[in-house]
């Protein structure tokens, strides 16, 4: 089912979408262009939060909360720790990106990429509306996870275990006894 542009703007949900999406995009833009490193990371928080909100809008509350908890809760913390440990210049404005000589071609590349995919999308789906949907019940998700998706689930848990061990091993300071 398609929708015309005029009708699209008349739906309240779409306005809500715009209110969420635009800041998300802005925050994404600032993440990659800010010269203050902490601010860049914090802008990432906003972008991630925006995607979480969009998830809610798409009727995937569980995924949305997972994004909040894992991404914003843990990953961002990791980033901040990383900034701290590598003694990045905090609070000061420094050149955190390559000079314009690099930025402009890359920017062009990004724009072109966006254009191509956007064109493909619009060409394929144009004004197709989403069917009315119920938010996904977490119980359904959990049933699926432990039945249909149990193997990826197990594999991912192994990956996390490996990452855990790997991370610890990598980041361990050499003990004095290893330095003989």
């Amino acid at each position: 089912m398609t929708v015309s542009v005029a009708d699209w703007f008349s739906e309240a949900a779409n306005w809500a979408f715009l209110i969420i999406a635009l800041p998300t995009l802005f925050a994404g833009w600032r993440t990659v262009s800010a010269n203050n490193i902490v601010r860049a990371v914090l802008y990432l928080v906003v972008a991630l939060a925006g995607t979480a909100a969009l998830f809610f809008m798409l009727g995937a509350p569980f995924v949305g909360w997972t994004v909040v908890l894992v991404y914003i809760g843990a990953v961002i913390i990791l980033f901040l720790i990383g900034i701290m440990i590598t003694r990045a210049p905090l609070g000061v404005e420094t050149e955190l990106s390559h000079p314009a000589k690099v930025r402009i071609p890359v920017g062009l590349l990004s724009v072109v990429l966006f254009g191509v995919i956007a064109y493909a999308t619009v060409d394929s789906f144009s004004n197709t509306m989403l069917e009315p949907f119920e938010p996904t019940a977490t119980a359904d998700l959990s049933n699926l996870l432990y039945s249909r998706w149990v193997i990826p689930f197990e594999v991912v848990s192994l990956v996390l275990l490996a990452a855990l061990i790997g991370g610890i091993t990598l980041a361990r300071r050499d003990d004095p006894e290893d330095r003989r």
Partner: protein
Amino acid sequence: MTITQFVLVATALFSLGLYGVITRRNAVLVLASVELMLAAVNLNMVSFDTYLQDQLHAGQMMSLFIIALAAAEVGIGIAIILMIYRNLHTADVDELNRMKG
């Protein structure tokens, strides 16, 4: 709500993330840009899941896995950056040109 609007947002975020990966000098910020790209992908997944009304919710399951793996990846990535910092005393990716040929 159309499917297009969500996909366009995801595409834009992806492109921004790509820009950041190539442009940023600090290794941590490169990782952050990668995170942005992954988030965009998640958004794509879930939008299509809703669009297709998938009974198996493949999209949502995929995005859960992606989140978990992204977290693991960031953990390892930060550990690696830490190691690099310990050896080279810098987190600037321009300094990491040992494979120059």
